[in-house]
């Protein structure tokens, strides 16, 4: 019971949008899909939804290929607002619910329930174009969740929302995962992925630069961050062997090091100069990994 992509490649003429992409999303887990704009995220989603056929490779969900028969089990949130601007919110949700196989009455009560849960019941009879960007995004998310899908594909679900609403939405999505749904989502926001996803991929120009379990990704990155706070400048330490980058601030510096051994050498070197207020070895953040991997590709 999982979504599997096996060495999926998609070419448009000479252009390779997705190159040898493999990933597995287990039931009841969330998979983060990271990539800069134009990395091939939307193309991948469209292939999973069956809108495009892969040039090579195989996509299956629970051992079946995804087709219009399985569409009632899938929820999809496109990147930009995917709603009729001139249609009323409730009518629209009922229509989209019906398209995903719901009965009219069931779609209506589910829509009202979600509007209530997302604290926008006052928008029930408004036209979508009258709503703010954030509220449109909420309606959009409701449209993706309404029919209780088992596979959720969310393209940038949190864009345009304030922190309070992001939390509300996160909670809803986590509830879905806990209910056994398989979730795949893309984001520019590393912190969201770090917080929510068990597994992730970073793709760039269609290639999978990093993939796997969050902890493994961080470990295999190898590099660690060393935070040192001291009352004197630490500029000289930057040139030590094994230090890749350094960020200085008023209170000290953060060094990225190749291995843990370098961290200890750094500490010793710093202690020679004077007293240290704080010394810490941190895991690299996803942000660091993303910048290191994608940035390197750019260069």
């Amino acid at each position, binding site marked *: 019971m999982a979504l599997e992509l096996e060495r999926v490649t998609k070419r*448009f003429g000479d252009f390779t949008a997705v190159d040898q992409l493999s990933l597995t999303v287990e039931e009841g887990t969330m998979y983060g899909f990271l990539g800069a704009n134009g990395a091939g995220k939307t193309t991948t989603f469209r292939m999973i939804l069956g809108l*495009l056929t892969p040039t090579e490779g195989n996509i299956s969900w629970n051992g079946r290929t995804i087709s219009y028969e399985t569409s009632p089990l899938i929820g999809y949130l496109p990147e930009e607002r*995917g709603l009729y601007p001139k249609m009323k919110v409730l009518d629209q949700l009922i229509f989209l619910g019906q398209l995903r*196989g719901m009965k009219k009455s069931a779609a209506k009560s589910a829509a009202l329930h979600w509007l209530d849960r997302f604290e926008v019941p006052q928008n029930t009879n408004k036209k979508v174009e009258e709503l703010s960007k954030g509220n449109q995004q909420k309606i959009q998310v409701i449209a993706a969740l309404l029919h209780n899908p088992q596979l959720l594909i969310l393209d940038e679900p949190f864009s345009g929302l304030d922190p309070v609403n992001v939390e509300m939405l996160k909670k809803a999505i986590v509830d879905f995962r806990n209910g056994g749904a398989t979730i795949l989502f893309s984001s520019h926001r590393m912190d969201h992925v770090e917080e929510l996803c068990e597994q992730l991929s970073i793709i760039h120009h269609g290639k999978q630069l990093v993939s796997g379990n969050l902890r493994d990704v961080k470990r295999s990155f190898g590099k660690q961050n060393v935070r040192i706070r001291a009352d004197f400048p630490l500029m000289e330490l930057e040139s030590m062997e094994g230090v890749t980058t350094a960020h200085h601030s008023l209170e000290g510096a953060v060094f990225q090091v190749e291995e843990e051994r370098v961290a200890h050498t750094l500490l010793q070197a710093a202690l020679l100069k004077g007293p240290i207020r704080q010394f810490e070895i941190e895991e690299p953040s996803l942000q660091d990994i993303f910048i290191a991997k994608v940035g390197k590709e750019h260069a």
Partner: protein
Amino acid sequence: MREFWIIFKQSFLTKAKTKSFFITTLIMVAGIFLFANLPSIMERVGKMMGNEEDDRVLVVDESGVLFDRLLEQLQRNEQGISLELTEDSPDQLSEQVKSEEIAAFMELSFDADQTIQANYTTSSLVDQFLPSTLQDALQNIQTEVKAEQLSLSAEQVSKLFAPIQFEKHNISETAKSEEELNQARILVYVLMFVIYFAVIIYSSMIATEVATEKSSRVMEILISSVSPVKHMFAKVLGIGSLGIVQILIYAVSGFLAYRLSATGEKNELSAFFSLENLEVSTLVYAVIFFLLGYFLYATLAALLGSLVSRTEDVQQMIMPMSLLIVAAFIIAATGLGNPELGYLKIASFIPFFAPLVMFLRVGMLDLPLWEPLLSIGIMVVTILILGWFGSKVYRGGVLMYGPSRSLKDLKKAVQLGKE
């Protein structure tokens, strides 16, 4: 099939429920009622403006006899013209006409040959009725005067002016009698207009709808639960039904309006709407050609609409299609006067012109049955081909974004659809 009906219902109902649809329909119905009652409204307005008085013409009669005979003649014809004898000089009268105190004046006299000389002076450019009535009346008097001179009896005079018998018979198989043709002409003309407007309005509505769905990205959600082909045909049928409902509303209100209109005056339009002398076959053909024309152009419009990503580009994209419809209408309109022109026959078998041109020919001529059938067959085949090709383009087109507003994108879309 379930999704098909959901989309069908959605495209029908959301459009039908819009304010603009309601208002357009209401205005059109009001317009039809107004038009039906136009003669009686004009009459009433005329009365209110105080125009019901007879036209008054001052006459300077130098002959001394003509005025009385003219008066007599006009009374016989019961025309609403009142004459008044005056002694004023022509110059004075000219001044009065200029200052618009009177509408016109006329000087009457005999020349040496006892022929009537009349000088009619007016300041109105558009006044045709009054002088021609007076001229006719004077002509009659002239005939009487001359007959008296020649001492002809009334019988002899009427023999002299007896009209000849001239009857036209057309033995061409396709021609209808002149009377039939005139009746058919107005019916065909009205229906042609309906077909033309319906096709142009509803097909551009479809293109806009598709482009709106694309630009708002609802399309991605739609085609992830419904195949693009199903979506396209549901859309075409949904908007088509909306069009049929709207036309039916107009037809019923037209029928009621002319039934209820108080004038009781019969003209060709009222005869059309009251379904007198209506040829059922013409109406049946109108329905057939409307449906075929609609599906032909709607499929094309959906195809074109799927190529643009912004609603602003729709009009530009469907421009070639709109020109085709306009061309079809112009070709058909030139045939109203003479439906037997050679190029009409050719045009009536060209699929994009056929809905209007073949309808014109079949409505106005007695064509052998195979001609309309062949034309219908050609259109059905074209619709099928367009539907097949359209669904290929549509599959890819709806996923294509970017500045696409030329027909070159057709190839790209078909390619993407295959992938």
